[in-house]
């Protein structure tokens, strides 16, 4: 009985590994397409950053994000999922002072939601396997970064320049996400 279960577990593990390998390629393709669309939607939001130079602030983006080549595929999944989740959280806040189109925001939120749905099964599986990795540390640093963003918006009372500055930060996040997606290849 034990041997039978062991064999089944081994087969399931091999199959899951194969399935994950295949899903990484598909996930990478989906991520790249979705991120390109999100960036396009964000650029459609009117904004003049050159006029908000005084509102600039250093929100302390994690340094490891700038050296993403160190990430493993599993770490990249965790970080990508966290970033998408935080961006989704920020864009659901009050942006009325910006004059942005709600349709564009909704499309953007929908795209983010679909990306998270694609990543969630893999993200949960990785969370169950890994105890403490570089991805977990980066996620903690990212949470602090996004907390600063939210606090900035609140302090600026969600004014136009504050949202402009945050928009720029979100665009930077998508650039990082594009890099991380590139590490999902086999």
């Amino acid at each position, binding site marked *: 009985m034990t041997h039978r279960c062991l064999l089944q577990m081994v087969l399931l593990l091999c199959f899951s590994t194969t399935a994950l390998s295949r899903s990484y390629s598909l996930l990478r393709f989906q991520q*790249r397409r979705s991120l390109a669309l999100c960036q396009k939607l964000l650029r459609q939001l009117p904004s003049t950053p050159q006029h908000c*130079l005084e509102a*600039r602030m*250093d929100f302390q983006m994690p340094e490891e994000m700038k050296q993403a*080549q160190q990430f493993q595929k599993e770490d990249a999944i965790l970080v990508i999922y966290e970033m998408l989740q935080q961006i989704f959280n920020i864009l659901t806040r009050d942006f009325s002072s910006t004059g942005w189109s709600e349709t564009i925001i909704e499309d953007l939120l929908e795209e983010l939601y679909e990306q998270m749905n694609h990543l969630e099964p893999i993200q949960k599986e990785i969370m169950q396997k890994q105890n403490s990795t570089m991805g977990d540390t980066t996620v903690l640093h990212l949470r602090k970064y996004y907390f600063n963003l939210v606090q900035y918006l609140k302090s600026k009372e969600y004014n136009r320049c504050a949202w402009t500055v945050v928009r*720029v930060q979100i665009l*930077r996040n998508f*650039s990082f996400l594009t890099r991380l997606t*590139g590490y999902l*290849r086999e």
Partner: protein
Amino acid sequence: MLLSQNVSAIGPLNLYPMVHISLVFGISYVAPVLSDEHCTLKMRFRNFQSVLSWELKNHSIVPTHYTLWYTIMSKREDMKVVKDCINVTRSFCDLTDVWVNTTDMYIPQVVGFRENAKLVICMGSFFLVPDKPLDPPEFEIVGFTNHISVNVKFQFDSPGILSEELQFYLAFIEEHAGNSVKRHQPQITGNITKNFNYVIDKLIPNTNYCISVYFEPKDPRKINRSPLKCTLFRPRRESESSESATIGGIITLFLITAVFISTVMILKRIGYICLRNDFPKVLNFYKLSVWVFAELPPLEKVATVEVIHVNRKKKVWNYNYDDENDIENEAAPHLISGGYTKHGLTGKLCPTSTTSPSLEDCSLEDCSEPSAEEPYLPEPKGDAETPMAPGPGLWQSEGTSGGYQTRGTLWQDPTSEEDSDSTEGSEGRIVFNVNLNSVCVRALEDDKDSEVTLMSPSCPEETVELEDLNETESSVLVASEEGTQLPFTNPSTECPRPQDAPSDKSDTSDPDVDMGDGYIVRQVNLKKFN
């Protein structure tokens, strides 16, 4: 001169030209335009080369030179001037080596001057996003004996951006062979600046291969492939080695096949495999006729044997010849003349056969053992039909099939304890053949002195003539009811009579004469016993 004349007549009339000149200078001063609407900034980011260009919308304002400054949005930093774009007369600026961070937003500021006056200030915001897919790099292909080398040349002059960004723009090499396309993904490290070399092996000889190189854009839907460059892979030296390898492979395969076949043949030869199933014909049971009509074994030759029972009482041979007591029993011991000891014949029916007169089964007891045997005195039967034989027994010769007769007479021991009446009642007659070579026979002679008839008083006398026992021809003793004379060998030859004539002497005193052939003759006067 005009000014000096205007200055001498200074009065109210002389002050008018000075004021006029002052107003002219005031009008000619133009304040700088600080608005994006008056400028159009364009950023071209291609092949990792970023070029910022600007164009004034109001053509009436024509600066004589421009200066470019920039800053970033991620940090609160002051404007930085681009060294290569200070007081430039052109309306563009190459920022490839300046703007290297593709994740940050750059805020450029273009200031148009006319002489030292700022005429226009234009600002913008840009991310380094390629507006078009990366142009495919230049490459060269070289065909070798066993592989094709692809030398990719990067046309990027910015090592900084190349090391950081190129790894995210995956380079692919497509291998076209017929209708099949295989994509190779070379590993590009950050140190690569100019070019790199990629080797494509495991190619099919005598096949046309076409190579294409391109960068994978961030948008997977936009791929800018390079034109195909083809070469015919025709290995030269390797072809020979491949041919030799092919020949060696064929030879090896042939040897393996030969070894296998020889092994199978050996195993078949020794009977380990493929056992023979061709059984001998005798084991062929498919012939039903054999099953149904089995050949009967040859019939045995049956010979009829006529057995003549002669009841004789057992008689103890007593050599005391002085005793003249009569013997009550009918089976008075009859002594054979010449001193032969008669032995009881214990014959059995022998098969009647005309071809094989082997009658060893019907052999008589050897007459060379006289003392050990009880004397056998034939007792003639009352029945005339009973054939009597003078000798100790019946004989039968073995011979050819021609002279072989199947009838013989079996004598019963006259000294048997059986009632003599049984002899009278024995009607059965057993006829068998006696091998004359195995018995000693003696012809009955009409000799008063020594001869004694072998017949019992109750039996008719019969003279038996025995043939020479040495003769191989059959000498048949036929006992019949008529009392046929039986051939009788001359005892003088086979069983030569002893030289000494028999006399009324005790048996013990009678000398034994060696007749030769193992026979011992005893001369016994049997008259006393009659």
